[in-house]
């Protein structure tokens, strides 16, 4: 590789379509650019090549969802318990107030 090739090679790695005066005249740099273009094209093609998901993933996720939906139910039970304890406290307070009034 000639010294003049070096800065162009660095640019070509980032941008294979980069074309300077040097690249248009240097066959080695053009070959390098072609390799990077091929590399990027193959990498883009990889995206469409899907690997089949493991068998049973949908079912496993489905079981997981049931556990997630349990959480709000539990919190609703907690809310009901909290409200009930509030009602009991209120009733107690009213009872105490009545006793004081009657006394």
């Amino acid at each position, binding site marked *: 590789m000639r010294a003049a090739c070096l800065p162009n090679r660095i640019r070509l790695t980032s941008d294979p379509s980069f074309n300077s005066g040097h690249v248009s005249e240097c066959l080695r740099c053009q070959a390098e650019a072609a390799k990077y273009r091929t590399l990027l094209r193959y990498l*883009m093609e990889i995206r469409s090549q899907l690997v089949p998901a493991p068998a049973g993933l949908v079912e496993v996720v*489905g079981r997981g969802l049931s556990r997630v939906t349990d959480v709000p139910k539990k919190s609703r039970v907690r809310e009901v318990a909290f409200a009930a304890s509030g009602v009991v406290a209120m009733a107690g307070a009213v009872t105490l107030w009545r006793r004081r009034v009657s006394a």
Partner: protein
Amino acid sequence: MADRNVEEGRELLERAQNGDEGAFSELVRIHQSEVFTLALRLLGNYELAADAAQETFIRAWRALPKFRGDAALSTWLHRITVNTSWTLGRRAQRHNAVDIDEVAPIGDDTQPSPEAVAENAELQARLRNAVTDLPDAHRAVVVLKDIYGWSHAEVAESLDISVTAAKVRLHRARKRLKESLWREMV
């Protein structure tokens, strides 16, 4: 036909957002390979990728009511997959759970198009293996930028690094891939 699919997808999404588990399971069925493939490419480990895919869908289910549809569902799922993969990957590294022998070559079960096979099947296979063999940090950048088309800024944000660092990693990764692809040919 495409419009009908889009319409059905929208309907499924709406039902899932209203808590319909059956509709969400159908969405999982549609997107499972896409999510699993991305996780596998990022993590390079079959078991870990399966866990990441599962966790991704659970997280998606939890976050689904907040999904406003600004981006496509698949794009949204990709982001969750990437975040989940990083979390599981870091956890696995901490616990040394990744067995090197278990690392599966990426894309073993894939079926490239006949044109691609004719063009250069050997190069394709070598590239998939070369991507798998990249160090984790380099593989992440190549997968997100060159395979999934994310911008440098998006890659940097996802990896919590600067844009310059993302570009440097990509530069090194591409150079390494090119060298491993053409080493025997030069």
